[in-house]
């Protein structure tokens, strides 16, 4: 990969404690079910202890740590697939159970002092968006992931007419409305919406934008190519 020059200086031998430098890297640890309390253990040791491929762990970390890093599937194996899916599922869970309800309540606070029409329309806009996100995640959880996991079962493999390339086609862009919401809050919301409540909402949007972006890099550049290879 030509992005290698940009890669931060961590490798399998780096101390695990040293790479926890931002909240997004911390969230990887959380989503991969790795317990804190690393002591002086290296990334390699911690991954072994957790039955995780070090290669996969390093690739995921680099996606979050290095701006515009594009991972490849070199050195990844079939055995990494369930682990990637587990990671994506735990991310979904965090979004639906914690992040989006929190954003929703921040938006609610922000709109409290707006006039009836703006309030009603923006609430509806957000509810529709919420619905869209849910549909998108449900589709992955109920169609895509079960299909991928069934691939290891050779009998099911041929019976299934679904292919990973259908996923790519269905992979709708859920970031568009988020952009719209962000611009509406920055540019057009009436002054009656308090500055602090807007800033809270915007900070949340920046956070999720980044997370969604990294999430789709992992899906598009790691998961899909890896699955196509074994399909």
């Amino acid at each position, binding site marked *: 990969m030509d992005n290698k020059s940009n890669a931060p200086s961590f490798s399998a031998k780096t101390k695990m404690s040293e790479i926890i430098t931002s909240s997004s890297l911390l969230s990887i640890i959380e989503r991969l079910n790795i317990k804190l309390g690393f002591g002086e253990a290296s990334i390699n040791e911690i991954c072994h202890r957790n039955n995780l491929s070090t290669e996969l762990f390093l690739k995921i970390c680099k996606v979050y740590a290095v701006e515009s890093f594009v991972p490849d599937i070199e050195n990844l194996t079939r055995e990494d697939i369930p682990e990637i899916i587990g990671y994506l599922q735990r991310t979904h869970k965090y979004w639906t159970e914690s992040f989006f309800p929190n954003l929703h309540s921040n938006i609610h606070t922000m709109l409290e002092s707006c006039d009836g029409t703006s309030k009603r*329309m923006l609430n509806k806009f957000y509810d529709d968006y919420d619905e869209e996100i849910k549909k998108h995640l449900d589709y992955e959880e109920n169609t895509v992931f079960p299909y991928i996991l069934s691939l290891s079962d050779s009998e099911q493999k041929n019976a299934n007419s679904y292919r990973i390339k259908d996923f790519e086609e269905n992979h709708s862009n859920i970031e568009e*409305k988020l*952009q719209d919401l962000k611009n*509406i809050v920055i*540019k057009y919301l009436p002054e009656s919406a308090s500055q602090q409540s807007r800033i809270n909402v915007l900070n949340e949007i920046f956070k999720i934008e980044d997370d969604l972006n990294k999430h789709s890099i992992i899906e598009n550049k790691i998961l899909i190519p890896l699955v196509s290879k074994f399909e």
Partner: protein
Amino acid sequence: MSAKHKVTIIEPSEIVSAGLKQLVEYRGNFHVAKIFKSLQDYSENLNGNPDIILINPSVLNTGDINDPRNILTTKDNVTIVAICYLAYNEETMRNYDGSIGMFCTQEQIEKKLQSALKTSSDKEQDDNSNELSARECEILTAVAKGKTNKEIADEFNLSIHTVISHRKNISHKLGINSIAGLTIYAVMNKLLDVEDF
């Protein structure tokens, strides 16, 4: 005196184009550099870099009549003026920066060309500004009402291509892409009554 404005004429009748050339050049502000009899003639030859194109809308195919700019030039700063034997409807004329009729006097032609130049430079400023133009507001309102590109094209007598390009510009200026988001913008900016939907 500033340099002469370069004019290209696209007009099937030689009598008309020769007459126009004479009248247009009379005061010395304009110079007719090229005359073409048909659109084919125009597109097959090097057409120079005119400041103004005088064109008889009848040389355009009916489908393109509302969209002379896309057919004639890739540049935004060319002024396009219709040569009208007959009256065209207002919607068609909106796509031109001005028009000249068969009974215009030399003074009128001079004035019309000057004001067409001004119209098109205003439009250009309009395009470069970050604010929505009047036309963009109209189209945005139609989008917010849920109209399709085809319906909007029919309503405003535009090609679908033009509607799409307007929509791109609108989204680019506002930073809003979804129809739902555009609707919120339209209502917040009073382009649309909530009762409208």
